[in-house]
Protein backbone atom coordinates (compact mmCIF):
# COMPACT_ATOMS: atom_id res chain seq x y z
CA UNK A 1 0.00 0.00 0.00
CA UNK A 2 1.37 3.35 -1.09
CA UNK A 3 0.48 6.60 0.63
CA UNK A 4 -0.63 9.11 -2.03
CA UNK A 5 -1.36 12.09 0.18
CA UNK A 6 -1.97 13.21 3.72
CA UNK A 7 -5.36 14.86 3.86
CA UNK A 8 -5.68 15.86 7.51
CA UNK A 9 -2.83 16.32 9.98
CA UNK A 10 -2.80 16.09 13.77
CA UNK A 11 -3.98 19.65 14.34
CA UNK A 12 -6.63 19.23 11.66
CA UNK A 13 -8.06 16.18 13.47
CA UNK A 14 -8.20 18.15 16.72
CA UNK A 15 -10.08 21.01 15.03
CA UNK A 16 -12.44 18.59 13.30
CA UNK A 17 -13.27 16.85 16.58
CA UNK A 18 -13.95 20.22 18.19
CA UNK A 19 -16.38 21.14 15.41
CA UNK A 20 -18.09 17.72 15.50
CA UNK A 21 -18.54 18.03 19.27
CA UNK A 22 -20.20 21.44 18.85
CA UNK A 23 -22.46 20.10 16.10
CA UNK A 24 -23.57 17.15 18.24
CA UNK A 25 -24.41 19.42 21.18
CA UNK A 26 -26.22 21.91 18.93
CA UNK A 27 -28.33 19.36 17.11
CA UNK A 28 -29.36 17.59 20.31
CA UNK A 29 -29.97 20.86 22.18
CA UNK A 30 -27.66 19.82 24.99
CA UNK A 31 -26.14 16.55 26.12
CA UNK A 32 -28.52 15.28 28.80
CA UNK A 33 -29.94 12.42 26.77
CA UNK A 34 -26.82 11.64 24.73
CA UNK A 35 -24.68 8.51 24.69
CA UNK A 36 -21.72 7.78 22.41
CA UNK A 37 -20.95 4.39 20.88
CA UNK A 38 -17.58 4.02 19.19
CA UNK A 39 -17.16 1.30 16.61
CA UNK A 40 -14.07 -0.81 16.98
CA UNK A 41 -11.29 -0.09 16.40
CA UNK A 42 -10.67 3.57 15.66
CA UNK A 43 -14.25 4.65 16.24
CA UNK A 44 -13.68 3.75 19.87
CA UNK A 45 -10.79 6.20 20.18
CA UNK A 46 -12.69 8.89 18.27
CA UNK A 47 -15.66 8.45 20.61
CA UNK A 48 -13.37 8.85 23.62
CA UNK A 49 -11.90 12.04 22.19
CA UNK A 50 -15.37 13.38 21.40
CA UNK A 51 -16.47 12.57 24.93
CA UNK A 52 -13.56 14.55 26.34
CA UNK A 53 -14.21 17.50 24.01
CA UNK A 54 -17.93 17.55 24.85
CA UNK A 55 -17.02 17.55 28.53
CA UNK A 56 -14.70 20.53 27.98
CA UNK A 57 -17.49 22.43 26.27
CA UNK A 58 -20.51 21.43 28.31
CA UNK A 59 -19.02 20.17 31.57
CA UNK A 60 -20.82 16.84 31.47
CA UNK A 61 -19.28 13.40 31.02
CA UNK A 62 -21.59 11.51 28.68
CA UNK A 63 -21.75 7.71 28.77
CA UNK A 64 -19.48 6.21 26.12
CA UNK A 65 -19.32 2.59 25.03
CA UNK A 66 -17.70 0.36 22.46
CA UNK A 67 -19.51 -1.62 19.80
CA UNK A 68 -18.03 -4.57 17.88
CA UNK A 69 -20.25 -5.41 14.92
CA UNK A 70 -18.36 -8.41 13.54
CA UNK A 71 -21.13 -10.85 14.45
CA UNK A 72 -23.64 -8.82 12.42
CA UNK A 73 -21.64 -8.63 9.18
CA UNK A 74 -23.19 -9.72 5.91
CA UNK A 75 -20.06 -11.06 4.26
CA UNK A 76 -19.20 -14.22 6.20
CA UNK A 77 -19.97 -16.42 3.19
CA UNK A 78 -18.06 -14.36 0.66
CA UNK A 79 -14.97 -13.23 2.54
CA UNK A 80 -11.84 -15.28 2.18
CA UNK A 81 -10.37 -14.15 5.47
CA UNK A 82 -12.22 -14.74 8.72
CA UNK A 83 -12.75 -11.43 10.50
CA UNK A 84 -11.47 -11.12 14.04
CA UNK A 85 -14.17 -10.63 16.61
CA UNK A 86 -13.75 -8.71 19.85
CA UNK A 87 -15.83 -7.64 22.81
CA UNK A 88 -18.47 -4.93 22.92
CA UNK A 89 -18.59 -2.88 26.09
CA UNK A 90 -21.81 -1.01 26.80
CA UNK A 91 -22.34 -0.65 30.53
CA UNK A 92 -25.33 1.70 30.43
CA UNK A 93 -28.96 1.51 29.33
CA UNK A 94 -29.57 2.80 25.80
CA UNK A 95 -33.38 2.68 25.92
CA UNK A 96 -34.89 6.08 24.94
CA UNK A 97 -31.42 7.61 24.59
CA UNK A 98 -30.07 9.63 21.69
CA UNK A 99 -27.27 7.37 20.50
CA UNK A 100 -24.42 8.82 18.46
CA UNK A 101 -22.61 6.09 16.60
CA UNK A 102 -18.99 7.04 15.93
CA UNK A 103 -16.74 5.59 13.21
CA UNK A 104 -13.62 6.70 11.38
CA UNK A 105 -14.58 6.15 7.74
CA UNK A 106 -17.99 5.86 6.07
CA UNK A 107 -17.74 3.90 2.83
CA UNK A 108 -20.27 1.28 1.64
CA UNK A 109 -22.52 1.76 4.67
CA UNK A 110 -22.51 -1.96 5.47
CA UNK A 111 -20.75 -1.54 8.80
CA UNK A 112 -23.28 1.11 9.81
CA UNK A 113 -26.08 -1.27 8.83
CA UNK A 114 -24.55 -3.99 11.00
CA UNK A 115 -24.17 -1.50 13.86
CA UNK A 116 -27.87 -0.59 13.68
CA UNK A 117 -28.79 -4.26 14.08
CA UNK A 118 -26.34 -4.64 16.96
CA UNK A 119 -27.69 -1.57 18.78
CA UNK A 120 -31.27 -2.87 18.59
CA UNK A 121 -30.18 -5.96 20.55
CA UNK A 122 -29.25 -3.70 23.46
CA UNK A 123 -32.54 -1.81 23.53
CA UNK A 124 -34.66 0.77 21.73
CA UNK A 125 -32.95 4.15 21.54
CA UNK A 126 -34.95 7.31 20.89
CA UNK A 127 -32.70 8.18 17.97
CA UNK A 128 -29.54 6.83 16.39
CA UNK A 129 -27.22 9.36 14.73
CA UNK A 130 -24.07 8.67 12.77
CA UNK A 131 -20.86 10.65 13.20
CA UNK A 132 -17.82 9.93 10.99
CA UNK A 133 -14.43 11.54 10.61
CA UNK A 134 -14.35 10.88 6.86
CA UNK A 135 -17.05 10.17 4.28
CA UNK A 136 -15.38 8.72 1.20
CA UNK A 137 -18.52 8.01 -0.86
CA UNK A 138 -19.42 4.81 -2.78
CA UNK A 139 -22.45 3.93 -0.67
CA UNK A 140 -24.10 0.55 -1.30
CA UNK A 141 -26.94 1.02 1.18
CA UNK A 142 -29.28 3.94 1.91
CA UNK A 143 -27.23 5.30 4.82
CA UNK A 144 -26.19 8.89 5.47
CA UNK A 145 -24.06 10.42 8.21
CA UNK A 146 -25.46 13.17 10.47
CA UNK A 147 -22.03 14.58 11.29
CA UNK A 148 -19.11 14.45 8.85
CA UNK A 149 -15.58 15.58 9.63
CA UNK A 150 -14.55 15.77 6.00
CA UNK A 151 -15.92 14.58 2.67
CA UNK A 152 -13.15 13.00 0.63
CA UNK A 153 -14.20 11.94 -2.88
CA UNK A 154 -12.21 8.81 -3.76
CA UNK A 155 -11.89 6.26 -6.52
CA UNK A 156 -12.53 2.56 -5.87
CA UNK A 157 -8.79 1.87 -6.11
CA UNK A 158 -8.03 4.24 -3.29
CA UNK A 159 -8.46 3.74 0.40
CA UNK A 160 -8.76 6.23 3.23
CA UNK A 161 -6.63 5.33 6.20
CA UNK A 162 -7.23 7.03 9.52
CA UNK A 163 -4.35 6.80 11.98
CA UNK A 164 -4.73 7.56 15.64
CA UNK A 165 -2.04 7.83 18.29
CA UNK A 166 -3.90 5.41 20.55
CA UNK A 167 -2.75 2.54 18.31
CA UNK A 168 -0.78 4.11 15.45
CA UNK A 169 2.38 6.15 15.67
CA UNK A 170 0.72 9.35 14.40
CA UNK A 171 -2.57 11.22 14.12
CA UNK A 172 -3.68 11.82 10.55
CA UNK A 173 -5.88 10.92 7.62
CA UNK A 174 -4.15 9.49 4.57
CA UNK A 175 -5.17 8.60 1.03
CA UNK A 176 -3.54 5.32 0.01
CA UNK A 177 -3.43 3.44 -3.26
CA UNK A 178 -4.92 -0.02 -2.63
CA UNK A 179 -4.52 -1.28 -6.21
CA UNK A 180 -0.83 -2.09 -5.80
Amino acid at each position, binding site marked *: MKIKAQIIDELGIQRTITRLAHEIIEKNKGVDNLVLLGMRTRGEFLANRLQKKIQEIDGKEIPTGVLDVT*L*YRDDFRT*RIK*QPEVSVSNITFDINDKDVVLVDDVLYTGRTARAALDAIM*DYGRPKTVQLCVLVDRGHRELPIKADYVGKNIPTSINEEVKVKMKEIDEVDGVFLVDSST
Partner: protein
Amino acid sequence: MPLSSKHLLGLYDTPVEDIRLILDTAKTFREVLERPIKKVPTLQGQTVLNLFFEASTRTKLSFELAEKRLSADVVNFSKSGSSVQKGETFKDTVNNIISMKVDIIVVRHESAGVPQFLTRFTNAKIINAGDGRHEHPTQALLDIYSIEEKIGSVKGKKICIVGDIAHSRVALSNIFALKKLGAEVSVCGPLTMMPVNIEELGVKIYSDINKAIAENDVLNVLRIQLEREAGSSIPDLREYREYFGINAERIEKNNKDILILHPGPINRGVELSSDVADGPYQIILNQVTNGVAVRMAILYLLGTQN
Protein backbone atom coordinates in the same frame (compact mmCIF):
# COMPACT_ATOMS: atom_id res chain seq x y z
CA MET B 1 -6.60 -15.56 12.31
CA PRO B 2 -8.80 -18.64 11.80
CA LEU B 3 -8.55 -22.04 13.49
CA SER B 4 -6.07 -24.36 11.84
CA SER B 5 -8.54 -27.25 11.59
CA LYS B 6 -12.12 -27.46 10.34
CA HIS B 7 -13.05 -29.83 13.16
CA LEU B 8 -12.68 -29.91 16.93
CA LEU B 9 -12.01 -33.56 17.66
CA GLY B 10 -9.78 -33.31 20.71
CA LEU B 11 -7.30 -31.02 22.42
CA TYR B 12 -4.37 -33.42 22.07
CA ASP B 13 -4.13 -32.42 18.40
CA THR B 14 -5.18 -28.80 18.81
CA PRO B 15 -2.32 -26.28 18.66
CA VAL B 16 -1.98 -23.89 21.58
CA GLU B 17 -2.73 -20.89 19.31
CA ASP B 18 -6.12 -22.41 18.47
CA ILE B 19 -6.89 -23.01 22.14
CA ARG B 20 -6.06 -19.38 22.91
CA LEU B 21 -8.15 -18.17 19.98
CA ILE B 22 -11.18 -20.10 21.25
CA LEU B 23 -10.72 -18.78 24.81
CA ASP B 24 -10.31 -15.19 23.58
CA THR B 25 -13.29 -15.42 21.25
CA ALA B 26 -15.42 -16.78 24.08
CA LYS B 27 -15.08 -13.42 25.86
CA THR B 28 -17.05 -11.81 23.03
CA PHE B 29 -19.86 -14.30 23.46
CA ARG B 30 -19.80 -14.00 27.23
CA GLU B 31 -20.72 -10.35 26.67
CA VAL B 32 -23.47 -11.30 24.19
CA LEU B 33 -25.03 -13.44 26.96
CA GLU B 34 -25.34 -10.33 29.15
CA ARG B 35 -27.39 -8.40 26.59
CA PRO B 36 -31.17 -7.98 26.76
CA ILE B 37 -31.37 -9.85 23.44
CA LYS B 38 -28.89 -12.71 23.69
CA LYS B 39 -28.89 -13.63 20.05
CA VAL B 40 -26.73 -12.65 17.08
CA PRO B 41 -27.41 -13.39 13.39
CA THR B 42 -23.97 -14.81 12.61
CA LEU B 43 -24.80 -18.42 11.65
CA GLN B 44 -28.05 -17.64 9.85
CA GLY B 45 -28.76 -20.25 7.20
CA GLN B 46 -26.44 -22.87 8.65
CA THR B 47 -27.77 -26.11 10.03
CA VAL B 48 -26.31 -27.84 13.05
CA LEU B 49 -27.03 -31.47 13.90
CA ASN B 50 -26.70 -32.56 17.50
CA LEU B 51 -25.95 -36.25 17.18
CA PHE B 52 -26.18 -37.71 20.67
CA PHE B 53 -25.78 -41.47 21.00
CA GLU B 54 -25.29 -41.18 24.73
CA ALA B 55 -27.29 -39.54 27.49
CA SER B 56 -26.55 -35.87 28.18
CA THR B 57 -28.46 -32.99 29.70
CA ARG B 58 -25.98 -30.20 30.27
CA THR B 59 -23.78 -30.57 27.20
CA LYS B 60 -26.68 -31.06 24.84
CA LEU B 61 -28.68 -28.14 26.24
CA SER B 62 -25.60 -25.96 26.27
CA PHE B 63 -24.80 -26.74 22.63
CA GLU B 64 -28.40 -26.24 21.59
CA LEU B 65 -28.58 -22.84 23.29
CA ALA B 66 -25.25 -21.82 21.78
CA GLU B 67 -26.47 -22.83 18.31
CA LYS B 68 -29.77 -21.00 18.68
CA ARG B 69 -28.11 -17.86 19.99
CA LEU B 70 -26.01 -17.81 16.84
CA SER B 71 -29.21 -18.10 14.76
CA ALA B 72 -28.33 -21.51 13.32
CA ASP B 73 -31.07 -24.02 12.49
CA VAL B 74 -30.87 -26.91 14.91
CA VAL B 75 -31.84 -30.57 14.51
CA ASN B 76 -31.48 -33.05 17.32
CA PHE B 77 -30.89 -36.76 17.19
CA SER B 78 -30.88 -39.02 20.19
CA LYS B 79 -30.41 -42.74 20.16
CA SER B 80 -33.50 -43.63 22.11
CA GLY B 81 -36.54 -43.58 19.86
CA SER B 82 -34.44 -43.70 16.67
CA SER B 83 -33.96 -46.33 13.97
CA VAL B 84 -30.74 -47.37 15.66
CA GLN B 85 -32.98 -49.43 17.86
CA LYS B 86 -34.39 -51.10 14.75
CA GLY B 87 -30.89 -52.29 13.90
CA GLU B 88 -29.70 -49.57 11.51
CA THR B 89 -25.91 -49.20 11.49
CA PHE B 90 -24.18 -46.06 12.72
CA LYS B 91 -22.93 -45.20 9.25
CA ASP B 92 -26.34 -45.67 7.64
CA THR B 93 -28.02 -43.55 10.28
CA VAL B 94 -25.51 -40.76 9.88
CA ASN B 95 -25.50 -40.88 6.07
CA ASN B 96 -29.26 -40.52 6.06
CA ILE B 97 -29.12 -37.48 8.28
CA ILE B 98 -26.25 -35.94 6.33
CA SER B 99 -28.23 -36.30 3.10
CA MET B 100 -30.60 -33.77 4.58
CA LYS B 101 -27.69 -31.28 4.31
CA VAL B 102 -26.14 -30.18 7.56
CA ASP B 103 -23.16 -27.86 7.97
CA ILE B 104 -21.93 -28.75 11.45
CA ILE B 105 -22.30 -31.96 13.47
CA VAL B 106 -21.94 -32.02 17.25
CA VAL B 107 -21.42 -35.64 18.21
CA ARG B 108 -21.40 -37.62 21.42
CA HIS B 109 -20.86 -41.35 21.43
CA GLU B 110 -19.88 -44.03 23.93
CA SER B 111 -17.05 -45.20 21.66
CA ALA B 112 -13.78 -43.31 21.36
CA GLY B 113 -12.93 -42.16 17.84
CA VAL B 114 -16.46 -41.75 16.48
CA PRO B 115 -16.00 -38.00 15.75
CA GLN B 116 -12.80 -38.78 13.86
CA PHE B 117 -14.60 -41.58 11.96
CA LEU B 118 -17.35 -39.13 10.93
CA THR B 119 -14.86 -36.81 9.23
CA ARG B 120 -14.10 -39.59 6.74
CA PHE B 121 -17.49 -39.64 5.08
CA THR B 122 -18.99 -36.21 5.51
CA ASN B 123 -18.02 -32.68 4.51
CA ALA B 124 -19.68 -31.25 7.60
CA LYS B 125 -17.56 -29.75 10.35
CA ILE B 126 -17.37 -32.04 13.35
CA ILE B 127 -17.33 -31.02 17.01
CA ASN B 128 -16.63 -33.69 19.61
CA ALA B 129 -19.08 -33.46 22.52
CA GLY B 130 -17.53 -36.45 24.28
CA ASP B 131 -16.37 -39.78 22.84
CA GLY B 132 -15.95 -42.75 25.15
CA ARG B 133 -12.97 -42.37 27.46
CA HIS B 134 -11.11 -40.34 24.87
CA GLU B 135 -11.83 -36.59 24.95
CA HIS B 136 -14.42 -33.98 25.84
CA PRO B 137 -12.72 -30.87 24.47
CA THR B 138 -15.50 -28.32 25.01
CA GLN B 139 -15.76 -29.24 28.71
CA ALA B 140 -12.03 -28.72 29.21
CA LEU B 141 -12.12 -25.39 27.35
CA LEU B 142 -14.98 -24.10 29.47
CA ASP B 143 -13.18 -25.27 32.62
CA ILE B 144 -10.07 -23.34 31.61
CA TYR B 145 -12.10 -20.29 30.61
CA SER B 146 -13.80 -20.33 34.02
CA ILE B 147 -10.48 -20.66 35.88
CA GLU B 148 -8.95 -17.78 33.92
CA GLU B 149 -12.02 -15.61 34.42
CA LYS B 150 -11.57 -16.05 38.16
CA ILE B 151 -7.80 -16.09 38.76
CA GLY B 152 -6.16 -15.05 35.47
CA SER B 153 -3.94 -17.04 33.12
CA VAL B 154 -3.46 -20.73 33.97
CA LYS B 155 0.21 -20.44 33.06
CA GLY B 156 2.24 -21.50 36.07
CA LYS B 157 -0.89 -22.27 38.11
CA LYS B 158 -1.15 -25.56 39.97
CA ILE B 159 -4.25 -27.44 38.94
CA CYS B 160 -5.24 -30.85 40.27
CA ILE B 161 -7.89 -33.10 38.76
CA VAL B 162 -9.55 -35.24 41.40
CA GLY B 163 -11.45 -38.50 41.00
CA ASP B 164 -11.83 -41.29 38.50
CA ILE B 165 -9.12 -40.28 36.04
CA ALA B 166 -9.10 -43.66 34.28
CA HIS B 167 -12.70 -43.43 33.11
CA SER B 168 -12.70 -39.70 32.42
CA ARG B 169 -12.54 -37.99 29.06
CA VAL B 170 -12.88 -34.66 30.87
CA ALA B 171 -9.64 -35.35 32.72
CA LEU B 172 -7.73 -36.21 29.54
CA SER B 173 -8.88 -33.13 27.63
CA ASN B 174 -8.05 -30.94 30.63
CA ILE B 175 -4.58 -32.44 31.00
CA PHE B 176 -3.74 -31.98 27.30
CA ALA B 177 -4.92 -28.37 27.16
CA LEU B 178 -3.61 -27.25 30.55
CA LYS B 179 -0.15 -28.67 29.81
CA LYS B 180 -0.07 -26.80 26.49
CA LEU B 181 -1.03 -23.57 28.24
CA GLY B 182 1.79 -23.96 30.74
CA ALA B 183 -0.08 -25.04 33.88
CA GLU B 184 1.34 -27.48 36.43
CA VAL B 185 -1.11 -30.34 36.29
CA SER B 186 -1.61 -33.09 38.84
CA VAL B 187 -4.19 -35.78 39.53
CA CYS B 188 -5.56 -37.16 42.78
CA GLY B 189 -7.60 -40.29 43.46
CA PRO B 190 -7.46 -43.93 44.45
CA LEU B 191 -4.76 -45.86 42.55
CA THR B 192 -7.47 -48.10 41.10
CA MET B 193 -8.85 -45.03 39.35
CA MET B 194 -5.52 -43.99 37.81
CA PRO B 195 -4.85 -45.02 34.23
CA VAL B 196 -1.68 -47.02 33.70
CA ASN B 197 1.34 -44.91 32.75
CA ILE B 198 -0.43 -41.68 33.72
CA GLU B 199 2.94 -40.19 34.67
CA GLU B 200 3.91 -40.29 30.98
CA LEU B 201 1.53 -37.38 30.46
CA GLY B 202 3.78 -35.33 32.71
CA VAL B 203 1.39 -35.03 35.64
CA LYS B 204 2.08 -35.38 39.34
CA ILE B 205 0.06 -37.92 41.33
CA TYR B 206 -1.41 -37.30 44.77
CA SER B 207 -2.87 -40.04 46.90
CA ASP B 208 -3.64 -37.72 49.81
CA ILE B 209 -6.50 -35.28 49.17
CA ASN B 210 -5.42 -32.98 52.03
CA LYS B 211 -2.03 -32.56 50.40
CA ALA B 212 -3.66 -31.95 47.00
CA ILE B 213 -5.82 -29.22 48.52
CA ALA B 214 -2.86 -27.64 50.30
CA GLU B 215 -0.51 -27.58 47.32
CA ASN B 216 -2.79 -26.47 44.46
CA ASP B 217 -4.53 -23.32 43.24
CA VAL B 218 -7.41 -25.15 41.63
CA LEU B 219 -9.15 -28.51 42.08
CA ASN B 220 -11.22 -29.79 39.20
CA VAL B 221 -13.35 -32.43 40.90
CA LEU B 222 -14.78 -35.14 38.67
CA ARG B 223 -17.96 -37.03 39.21
CA ILE B 224 -17.67 -40.59 40.43
CA GLN B 225 -19.32 -42.20 37.44
CA LEU B 226 -21.24 -45.14 38.76
CA GLU B 227 -22.72 -45.85 35.32
CA ARG B 228 -19.20 -46.16 33.92
CA GLU B 229 -18.04 -49.10 36.02
CA ALA B 230 -16.43 -46.84 38.63
CA GLY B 231 -18.17 -49.01 41.15
CA SER B 232 -15.63 -51.77 40.63
CA SER B 233 -12.69 -49.45 41.38
CA ILE B 234 -13.72 -48.57 44.92
CA PRO B 235 -15.13 -50.65 47.80
CA ASP B 236 -18.06 -48.29 48.30
CA LEU B 237 -19.06 -44.63 48.09
CA ARG B 238 -18.71 -44.03 51.81
CA GLU B 239 -15.11 -45.15 51.73
CA TYR B 240 -14.43 -42.91 48.73
CA ARG B 241 -15.92 -39.97 50.60
CA GLU B 242 -13.84 -40.78 53.69
CA TYR B 243 -10.55 -40.65 51.75
CA PHE B 244 -11.19 -38.36 48.77
CA GLY B 245 -14.41 -36.45 49.43
CA ILE B 246 -13.95 -32.69 49.61
CA ASN B 247 -15.68 -30.89 52.45
CA ALA B 248 -15.46 -27.43 53.99
CA GLU B 249 -13.41 -28.71 56.93
CA ARG B 250 -10.67 -30.08 54.67
CA ILE B 251 -10.56 -26.84 52.69
CA GLU B 252 -10.46 -24.59 55.73
CA LYS B 253 -7.74 -26.66 57.32
CA ASN B 254 -5.51 -26.83 54.24
CA ASN B 255 -6.09 -23.98 51.79
CA LYS B 256 -8.76 -21.31 51.95
CA ASP B 257 -7.70 -19.83 48.59
CA ILE B 258 -8.51 -22.96 46.63
CA LEU B 259 -10.85 -22.74 43.65
CA ILE B 260 -13.21 -25.71 43.12
CA LEU B 261 -14.61 -26.75 39.76
CA HIS B 262 -16.96 -29.60 38.96
CA PRO B 263 -18.29 -30.51 35.50
CA GLY B 264 -21.59 -31.78 36.95
CA PRO B 265 -23.77 -33.57 37.69
CA ILE B 266 -22.58 -33.64 41.30
CA ASN B 267 -22.92 -36.67 43.52
CA ARG B 268 -23.61 -34.66 46.64
CA GLY B 269 -22.02 -36.19 49.69
CA VAL B 270 -19.61 -38.29 47.62
CA GLU B 271 -16.94 -36.26 45.79
CA LEU B 272 -18.23 -32.91 47.13
CA SER B 273 -20.10 -32.21 50.34
CA SER B 274 -23.06 -29.85 50.05
CA ASP B 275 -21.29 -27.11 52.02
CA VAL B 276 -18.60 -27.07 49.32
CA ALA B 277 -20.95 -27.52 46.36
CA ASP B 278 -22.92 -24.45 47.43
CA GLY B 279 -20.09 -22.67 49.21
CA PRO B 280 -17.76 -19.75 48.49
CA TYR B 281 -14.88 -21.74 46.99
CA GLN B 282 -16.68 -23.12 43.93
CA ILE B 283 -17.56 -21.68 40.50
CA ILE B 284 -19.73 -24.58 39.35
CA LEU B 285 -22.59 -22.50 37.97
CA ASN B 286 -20.19 -20.03 36.30
CA GLN B 287 -18.87 -23.04 34.42
CA VAL B 288 -22.36 -23.73 33.08
CA THR B 289 -22.85 -20.12 31.87
CA ASN B 290 -19.36 -20.00 30.39
CA GLY B 291 -20.04 -23.31 28.65
CA VAL B 292 -22.58 -21.64 26.37
CA ALA B 293 -20.12 -18.82 25.54
CA VAL B 294 -17.24 -21.22 24.83
CA ARG B 295 -19.44 -23.38 22.59
CA MET B 296 -20.67 -20.28 20.74
CA ALA B 297 -17.04 -19.34 20.15
CA ILE B 298 -16.22 -22.77 18.70
CA LEU B 299 -19.35 -22.84 16.52
CA TYR B 300 -18.59 -19.31 15.32
CA LEU B 301 -14.94 -20.02 14.53
CA LEU B 302 -15.73 -23.25 12.65
CA GLY B 303 -18.98 -22.05 11.07
CA THR B 304 -17.57 -18.88 9.53
CA GLN B 305 -14.36 -20.49 8.33
CA ASN B 306 -13.90 -20.60 4.55
